[in-house]
């Protein structure tokens, strides 16, 4: 590089870099991204589990019913409601990201994020109630 740097000075600097700056101000964009990342990873692990469960179909009805029983407990049902929330968030925020990247949505990214949050709450609560009702039946 064409900028002169004294060798002495190189030794002196204080490196305070961290992989994530926790005390940096949290803007909506960072919230959106952190949640997107977490939800994406959660979905992948669910997907792995899901494929493994469904794969029991090929071992016949008995095997399938057996695992369905294991994952059919109330605990899993409640977790499923959580899964629904994760899906809704990831899906709608994913669309927000796509709109920003493909269709010049950057100017409206905050508004888009509020819409995502709104839909997330409405659909999660709405869907959650329906699922809870199914559970009780």
């Amino acid at each position, binding site marked *: 590089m064409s900028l002169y740097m004294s060798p002495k000075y190189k030794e002196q600097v204080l490196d305070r870099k961290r992989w994530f*700056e926790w005390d940096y*101000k949290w803007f909506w964009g960072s919230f959106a991204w952190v949640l997107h990342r977490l939800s994406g990873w959660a979905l992948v692990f669910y997907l792995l589990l899901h494929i493994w469960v469904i794969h029991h179909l090929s071992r016949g009805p008995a095997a399938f019913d057996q695992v369905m029983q294991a994952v059919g407990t109330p605990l899993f049902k409640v977790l499923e409601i959580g899964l629904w929330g994760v899906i809704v968030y990831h899906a709608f925020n994913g669309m927000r990201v796509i709109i920003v990247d493909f269709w010049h949505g950057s100017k409206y990214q905050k508004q888009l994020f509020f819409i995502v949050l709104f839909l997330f709450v409405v659909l999660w609560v709405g869907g959650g109630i329906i699922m809870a009702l199914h559970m009780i039946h």
Partner: protein
Amino acid sequence: MKATFKIFRYDPDKDKKPYYKEYTLDVEPNTVLLDVLNDIKWHYDGTLTFRRSCAHAICGSCGMTINGKNRLACQTLIKDLDTSKPIKIEPLKSYPVIKDLVVDMNKFYEKMFKVKPYLVNDNPPPGREFLQTPEEQKLIDEAYSCIWCGCCTSSCPSFWADDDYLGPAALLKAYRFIFDTRDTLTEERLRIVNDADGVWRCHVIFNCVEACPKEINITEYISRLKLKVVTSKL
């Protein structure tokens, strides 16, 4: 009105570790933060060190992290800050610290240079200016106004995690030339940004836009770059 400023201090000549020092002084709501720092330096503590020059947000010297947000001290007024608590002033995040609020920006500059930040036009120059319509000029109008303050790159979580990421400022610079109708080095520039540590490390987090003192919509331009890369044959 009284306000307290909690300032990051570190002098490699005598300090093993950085620490914070508090200064309480009289300010007006309309006082510019840079003037507060000058006031401290000139009247209370001559050892306080920071960069500054123009005093009106055009030279890009005085970028620092103020109450957890990157901005220019000379563009921040006391009334923009919450004075009920000490106002925390740190050197820009994630760059190495030389002393107090002065950071080493060499890495930042290196990246600026990496994208070949200069117009290249292989055509023989006409006897007059290259023509460029106002619409074509508008494409780069906002992008060229970057003042190299480094606030954006220092605020980007992708950069925190990945030192080698070109970062928003360098990508903006690349955009400024790729979308300049006079430049002919487009393909090579696109190759440079199309790198594992290039444009793809941007996850549209928008911290850069929030930090940019010139209010440049950096993310928009990065997105346009991404689209340009995937739609070009490289």
